[in-house]
């Protein structure tokens, strides 16, 4: 493997790579990120490779490439396949489609109509990836390269201009200037709190200690958020390049990736990236002839949400239980093994090469007054286009949910967007037009957080959502300080009672009081922000709380103890479908006998409600009203007209 010793050698090497690549040579890119793999992408890759062999394209060298890439974001329609140079985008591709893709699209240059995106409103077929509304309405500076590179290939990253920022930083500007650039760009930390990255770097840089560390916080624990994983899996070199530039600016010679163990593919791709970067001389001694030394190691998290908090992360890296400690001293002064340490989130690091390559103005030209650049959100829940979306700061929530996300499925009514994970809040419809940035989200009681965005519709119970997050946080609270350990537990108790119909007058006020105490007295951000889901749901959906407490009614039909299922005898056609499907065997009846639910056996799983044919619509959900009396046995017989 060639070791690259100077920026000039790097550029020559890059030219060599590009000269060997014919931009007109067909290339089939298949997303093999975790989402598409779960949908069977690995089988699609195998089928495509076999088909290419079968149709005689593999005998000649380099006639067509198959590239396994990271996640481009449109998880909803996976497995995703993009065919270059035409940029033909196929959705929901199955192994059986491989034959046609090779013979029709690659050889005959014809588009296969059934695999392309169809606009749900106009019915228009859209062939090119970048013209699909989901992609068109985004600004994809960080995630856009995912489909263009094989994350295991450093040459692919070099082909799209990779490591040019590193060469520039190390060989053309001083560390102080790099810090200055990042400061000027107004980049704010993407992990949640939004602290100015340049200032954080400066603190660590100015610490008098000689040994310093830099860390990538990839302990992405918010349920429903997976953008960091997509970057690590899909474009690990971009994060590594950012980290190395940061180490140079700060004066650190050792770095760590702290990745949660639930992300094995991310760990694998990062580990490969580090090894390749070492081979090429982008890590190690005297990087690119600049005299700067830097090494990186990967460490696994062991499944503790609190380790995303930076002081807990440091404890975990030292091999201890991840319990946070009071700040100050901040890690910039006293971090890993007592040395100054700079910790940034994956997405923050990935922004760094962009700033170095294009100048601070590149970032400041995008976004709002206080928040610059783009942000990747994971748009999930009750939304048509589930996936990862990268949008400029300042875009409205409405544009994200409706333009990019394609609105709410099944004609249901929008209720709220939850942002910021367990530390965030729920934003109701009346604020759909706010501009999404760090400060605006805070004003409405939510936070940017790491970028989880969960869309909720009329079938989501807001009391249940608050209970869900507190249940999560009770399990994840490390237990070190009592406001968090006990405060969250008590709030959960009250919420559980409310959801079971045991809520009392005054519970809402008590929740507010406990929230305040937990927020003000907790040691770290986990407890400090834990009340947010409760406070924001009370603020905007107080009526739902009151319905649960006063009327013992769950308006969204979610809280099991407050609902029941009932088969309307006038509508039931005794079709046996619900009876067969009921996992609890709680439905009695026969071919000509109206079905009834045994309420003692019913587990309220809702299967009967879902499977009852819509033309009958016989299964009803009840909440806050008594069950109708059972019908007499003799009235259950249905006499059908004979078909003859």
């Amino acid at each position, binding site marked *: 493997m060639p070791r690259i010793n100077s920026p000039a050698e790097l550029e020559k090497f890059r030219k060599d790579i590009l000269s060997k690549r014919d931009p007109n040579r067909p290339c089939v890119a298949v997303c093999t990120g975790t989402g598409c793999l779960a949908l069977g992408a690995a089988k699609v890759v195998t089928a495509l490779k076999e088909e290419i062999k079968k149709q005689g394209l593999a005998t000649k060298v380099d006639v067509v490439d198959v590239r396994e890439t990271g996640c481009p974001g449109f998880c909803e329609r996976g497995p995703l396949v993009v065919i270059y140079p035409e940029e033909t985008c196929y959705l929901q591709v199955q192994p059986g489609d491989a034959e046609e893709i090779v013979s029709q699209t690659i050889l005959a240059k014809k588009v296969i109509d059934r695999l392309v995106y169809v606009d749900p409103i106009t019915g228009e077929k859209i062939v090119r990836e970048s013209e699909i509304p989901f992609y068109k309405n985004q600004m994809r500076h960080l995630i856009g390269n995912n489909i263009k590179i094989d994350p295991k290939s450093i040459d692919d990253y070099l082909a799209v201009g990779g490591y040019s920022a590193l060469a520039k930083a190390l060989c053309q500007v001083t560390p102080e200037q790099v810090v200055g650039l990042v400061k000027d760009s107004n980049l704010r930390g993407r992990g949640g709190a939004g602290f100015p990255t340049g200032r954080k770097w400066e603190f660590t840089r100015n610490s008098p200690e000689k040994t310093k560390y830099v860390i990538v916080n990839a302990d992405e624990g918010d349920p*429903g958020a997976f953008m960091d994983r997509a970057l690590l899996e899909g474009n690990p070199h971009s994060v590594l390049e950012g980290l190395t530039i940061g180490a140079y600016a700060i004066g650190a010679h050792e770095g760590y990736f702290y990745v949660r163990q639930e992300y094995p593919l991310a760990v694998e791709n990062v580990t490969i990236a580090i090894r390749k970067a070492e081979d090429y001389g982008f890590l190690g001694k005297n990087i690119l002839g600049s005299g700067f030394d830097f090494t990186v190691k990967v460490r696994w998290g062991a499944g503790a949400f609190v380790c995303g908090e930076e002081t807990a992360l440091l404890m975990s890296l030292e091999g201890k239980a991840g319990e946070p400690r009071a700040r100050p001293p901040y890690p910039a002064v006293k971090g890993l093994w007592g040395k100054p340490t700079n910790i940034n989130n994956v997405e923050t690091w990935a922004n760094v090469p962009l700033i170095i390559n294009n100048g601070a103005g590149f970032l400041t030209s995008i976004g709002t007054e206080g928040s610059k650049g783009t942000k990747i959100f994971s748009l999930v829940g009750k939304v048509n286009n589930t996936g990862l979306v990268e949008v400029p700061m300042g875009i409205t929530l409405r544009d994200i949910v409706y333009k990019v996300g394609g609105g709410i499925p099944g004609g249901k009514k929008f209720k709220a967007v939850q942002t910021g*994970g367990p530390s965030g809040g729920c934003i109701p419809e009346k604020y759909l037009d706010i501009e999404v940035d760090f400060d605006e989200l805070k004003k409405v009681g939510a936070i940017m957080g790491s970028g989880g965005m969960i869309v909720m519709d009329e079938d989501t119970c807001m009391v249940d959502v608050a209970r869900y997050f507190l249940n999560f946080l009770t399990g994840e609270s490390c237990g070190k300080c009592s406001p968090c350990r006990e405060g969250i537990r008590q709030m959960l108790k009250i919420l559980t009672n409310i959801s079971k119909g045991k809520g009392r007058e005054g519970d809402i006020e008590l929740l507010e009081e406990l929230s305040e105490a937990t927020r003000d007295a907790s040691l770290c951000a986990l407890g400090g922000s834990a009340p947010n889901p409760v406070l924001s749901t009370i603020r905007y959906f107080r009526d739902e709380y009151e319905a649960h407490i006063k009327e013992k009614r769950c308006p969204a039909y979610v809280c099991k103890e407050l609902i029941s299922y009932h088969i309307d005898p006038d509508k039931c056609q005794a079709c046996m479908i619900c009876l067969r499907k009921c996992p609890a065997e709680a439905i009695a009846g026969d071919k000509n006998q109206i079905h009834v639910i045994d309420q003692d056996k019913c*587990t309220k799983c809702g299967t009967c409600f879902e499977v009852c044919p819509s033309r009958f619509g016989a299964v009803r959900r009840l909440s806050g009203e008594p069950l109708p009396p059972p019908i007499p046995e003799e009235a259950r017989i249905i006499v059908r007209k004979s078909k003859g």
Partner: protein
Amino acid sequence: MDNDKIDKIIDKYPNDPSSLIQVLLEIQSENRWLPREALKKVSKKLKVPLNRIQHIITFYKAFSVVPKGRHEVHVCTGTACHVRGAQRVLDTVQDLIGIKPGETDQDLRFSLETVNCVGCCALGPVMVIDGEYHGKMAPAKSEDVLKNYE
């Protein structure tokens, strides 16, 4: 788990307490649980008292000190899955296999766990069995899926 394998894992890391979590994670992934003998060996080699190891393995969710069943069932209870009805799936799975999350049934057929998010939110609710993803789950469907694992 034989001694050689444990030694091999320990030798991959610096021989000091800071390696503890990484070593335990590798043993866990290799053996699927942490037998007491293995912990004793780790304690001796890395010079970490057993009570501190106990602290670590109860603090972090990735570790198990009891043997796991033949099939590991993970029901995702991430937010996206939750709003799409993961709780109803979990309830049904619990009823069907007769154990709660964190438990293993008596004939060691199933172990049940919940996970906070597997990041396949488009497929939610998701159930992962032995690393195989089953998406768009519903209570009735979960019964059909579980039947395939003996």
